[in-house]
């Protein structure tokens, strides 16, 4: 709605020429108050995190909380970079999230291509089993997968954290929905032109399905970046931690004495995904909404 018509509503409401306009006016006020009030409540935790990370000790431990710092210090950030392995944790997280994302995109697109464009015995059963595995909550497999990882000697390794992510069914299901709609004519004419199956996959399917792959990649990247329980169990050396694990261990070892440091670490750890979020919000919204339609 344009500013002009909004002002018109207010004008109508103010003159209260009729009951309808008046109701509309009050309803609009309630709507705006509700939405912007909620929005304000939603950003307070962010403001708190940002502000506390820059406050000197005397403000952090004052009886009265300061949402806006009176005095700014960078001491927590300099301690974060010099006194903790946070850079190492960031690198670990990038490797794990990036590796898992690439692996998921590769194997999921391959099987989705196979399930939608190629004909082979048993594929319907295979697809049904993959879809049915949606019902399996990750937590059931926690103990057995851990045992398997231990026996493969992958405890405390990047690969061990990635493998269960790669086995997840969501990407297969999402991509199958998209690959189904790939026009048959294009594939057929490519075959006549002498394209092999592999060439059709790399030169036609992958480039044409870029938006679906981007959405899936974003989703998996964020998911793996933020994962908590599985890396917590699997990564047992400080030098292997991902950011979420490192942060929590930092809180435990630094105790509640250092709220400034903890909030600084929280801001630093969420910054990369915040930037991704602001740059690619549209794709991310699509990725999440795709799951809604898939479900």
């Amino acid at each position: 709605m344009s500013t002009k018509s909004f002002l018109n509503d207010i004008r109508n409401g103010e003159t209260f020429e009729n009951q309808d306009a008046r109701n509309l006016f009050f309803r609009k006020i309630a709507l705006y108050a509700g939405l912007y009030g909620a929005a304000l409540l939603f950003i307070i935790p962010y403001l708190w995190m940002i502000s506390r990370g820059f406050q000197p000790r005397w403000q952090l431990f004052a009886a009265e909380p300061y949402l806006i710092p009176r005095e700014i210090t960078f001491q927590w950030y300099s301690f974060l970079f010099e006194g903790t392995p946070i850079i190492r944790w960031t690198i670990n997280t990038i490797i794990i999230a990036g590796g898992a994302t690439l692996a998921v995109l590769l194997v999921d697109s391959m099987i989705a291509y196979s399930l939608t464009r190629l004909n082979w015995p048993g594929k319907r059963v295979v697809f049904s089993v993959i879809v049915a595995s949606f019902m399996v909550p990750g937590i059931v497999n926690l103990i057995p997968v851990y045992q398997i990882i231990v026996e493969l000697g992958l405890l405390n390794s990047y690969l061990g954290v990635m493998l269960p992510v790669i086995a997840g069914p969501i990407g297969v299901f999402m991509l199958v929905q998209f690959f189904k709609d790939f026009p048959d004519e294009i594939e057929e004419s490519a075959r006549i032109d002498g394209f092999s199956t592999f060439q059709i996959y790399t030169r036609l399917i992958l480039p044409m399905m870029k938006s679906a792959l981007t959405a899936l990649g974003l989703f998996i990247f964020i998911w793996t970046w933020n994962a908590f329980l599985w890396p917590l169990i699997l990564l047992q050396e400080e030098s292997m931690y991902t950011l979420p694990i490192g942060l929590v261990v930092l809180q435990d070892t630094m105790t509640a004495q250092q709220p400034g440091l903890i909030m600084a670490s929280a801001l630093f750890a969420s910054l990369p995904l915040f930037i991704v979020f602001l740059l690619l919000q549209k794709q991310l919204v699509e990725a999440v909404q795709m799951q809604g339609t898939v479900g």
Partner: protein
Amino acid sequence: MLDLIAAMRTEGPRQALNLWWQEMVDEYDRRESAEGILFALPYLIAFVGFMLFPLLYGFYMSLYDWDALNPEQSEFIGLGNYQTLVNDPRFWEALWNTVWFVILTVPPLVILALLLALGVNRNVKGQTLLRTIFFSPYILTVAVVSLIWVELFAGEGGFIRYWLGFVMEDPPRFLIDPTWAMVSIAVATVWWSIAFNFIILLAARQNVPDRLYEAAKLDGASSYRMMRDITIPQMRNPLIFVVIITFVGSFQVFGQPYIMTDGGPRFSTHTIVMYLYTTGFAGRDFGYAAAIGYVLFLILITVSVVNYYVLSENE
């Protein structure tokens, strides 16, 4: 497959298998089949190894007094772990804590998400900004969410207690009071997890065709009637999806209590997944932990199926 079994009866097994094979050869192009299987294989290996097999292996483990260091020496105890579980007061307490958390989080996560989605969908100014704000916690890890809320709920100089102090006499000591600890965790969780439901329901609302409302307006329907007779029924499937997903997610809560309260005070925020984690990784009792996992699995399936039937009938 059924044809094959029927044919085995009438033609004899050998003949039947030959016929079946012949059919397969006729129906499927050999080269295409080989390529198809080859393309499916990398995922299938991961899927079988880290999804299907563990599902069976977990059940197998739950039948043993599992020795994590020497699995071969584990002692078979049948349903012993499940028997212990039923008589384990800690398990029931953790289950009740989890149910309490589900009760505290599912209604606001669904209803508030729906209200926000319907509100943002109106032609309000700053629609994009509002959507960004409500969706943004989606990209946070549970670690960051929990650490922020620990600070917000803190006792001395904590933001929430300080401001509540102006409206009430003695604000609760949120994370250290057994009656309030779970409520506090629920508040943090709603702030964090509403994003997903919100964005799904926003899309669902946008998919309801405008002409339905136009027709209703011509008939002079009130906005309450339009909500009840158009919006909600049209959004039924996404709503069912959101309700089930939220139930399943809340039942598996782990990070928030683990970080914010460590299950305390006095076990009041110890949830099922935390119990699974502590028995498995602190107590090293893998068989028992695997049994807890399986029981949780059954609970989740039941909850999902019941949800689905209750919500689908309710038109």
